[in-house]
């Protein structure tokens, strides 16, 4: 079980129609690769966030497959064009089956 997992997002509150806004996301997570050995010589089981998605008003913005080489606390930053007010919905999928979500409103005028 991954501990201390907290998602965080940063999206501008307002934008103009057609503006390209910068979206920043961060989730604290150990991202254990499954390739390291502990002090007992045994493999430490893999425990990573394996998928990250962002949707805006139900439309997919990004859908990322994450592999074990991604380091601790994965940070994603990307641009999105917004044409209307709405909600960015973010989802992170953990190897252990946990799903973490966060969202952010943006007002487009």
């Amino acid at each position, binding site marked *: 079980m991954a501990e201390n997992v*907290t998602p*965080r997002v940063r999206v501008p509150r307002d934008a103009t129609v057609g503006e390209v806004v910068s979206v920043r996301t*961060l989730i*604290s997570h150990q991202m254990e690769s499954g390739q390291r050995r502990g002090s007992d010589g045994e493999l430490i089981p893999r425990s990573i966030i394996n998928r990250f998605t962002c949707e805006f008003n139900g439309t997919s913005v990004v859908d990322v497959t994450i592999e074990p080489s991604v380091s*601790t*606390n994965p*940070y994603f930053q990307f641009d999105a064009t917004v044409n209307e007010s709405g909600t960015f919905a973010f989802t992170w999928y953990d190897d252990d089956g946990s799903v973490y979500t966060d969202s952010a409103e943006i007002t487009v005028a």
Partner: protein
Amino acid sequence: MTNKVLLGSVSAAIFAVAAAGIGLADIRTGASLVINGEIPIVTETEPPEFLQDVFPEIYSGWVFRTDETRAMEEDDFDNPGMLYVEQGIEAFNTVMGTEGNSCASCHDAPESLANVRPTYPQWDEAHGEVQTVEMQIIECQTERMGAEPYGYDSQQMRNMASLIASVGRGQPVNVAIDGPAAETWEAGREIYYTQFGQLEMSCADCHERNYGNLIRADHLSQGQINGFPTYRLKNANVNSVHNRFRGCIRDTRGETFAVGSPEFIALELYVASRGNGLSVEGPSVRN
């Protein structure tokens, strides 16, 4: 000081590499650091009086880093060190020990401790010794909370120290070096200028005489500790001052002092005083 093994030719080779580096001109001064758009940070300023003849100016380690690393520190969202501050806040508000107290029971909010990082290490009259922030935390835990104290360099301690530094950001480092602390300060000064290890290197060899130069791939800073605890990209965690001291002495191929030892406490006081006037920056981001 027991490890002054002579290997003159090796240390001469090291300095030849350093001398062939890119020189003082590579220190990119003049940029200003403002955290979250609201906390101005002094990253270059007049040296304290006792260093007037040594440095024209003192620089935070931030000045020596790349644009990308600098930028990470400008916004708490981009500063991974703040993840550890968050864990520190959680611990601050959690009851620990037999007295039923949390840190918040006495100190209300972490912001009430804004003056701690800028003025530590400082003389503690009751104990008759110079205390670091970590020692102060241990004192609270053992003498007032009835709690099992954090290990000096444990993750929990570094989280708490990061929190205490973060609320002091922007304030000038101002440790007292006179009065009862003077003796410890002198001991720290002695260590700073003592050559350690098989490579026979002192702190001053790199951080006073060769800052701005490259030692192999490392860009030498002035060794200021105003940015500690420091989030290092190399180990993706916050790092304590004493752990950094240990790493430096290890790199001289010397036997190091222990984290939390009287030698490192004295050295921390002395090195902190060399940065009097720079802003508290921790948790800073370094490579």
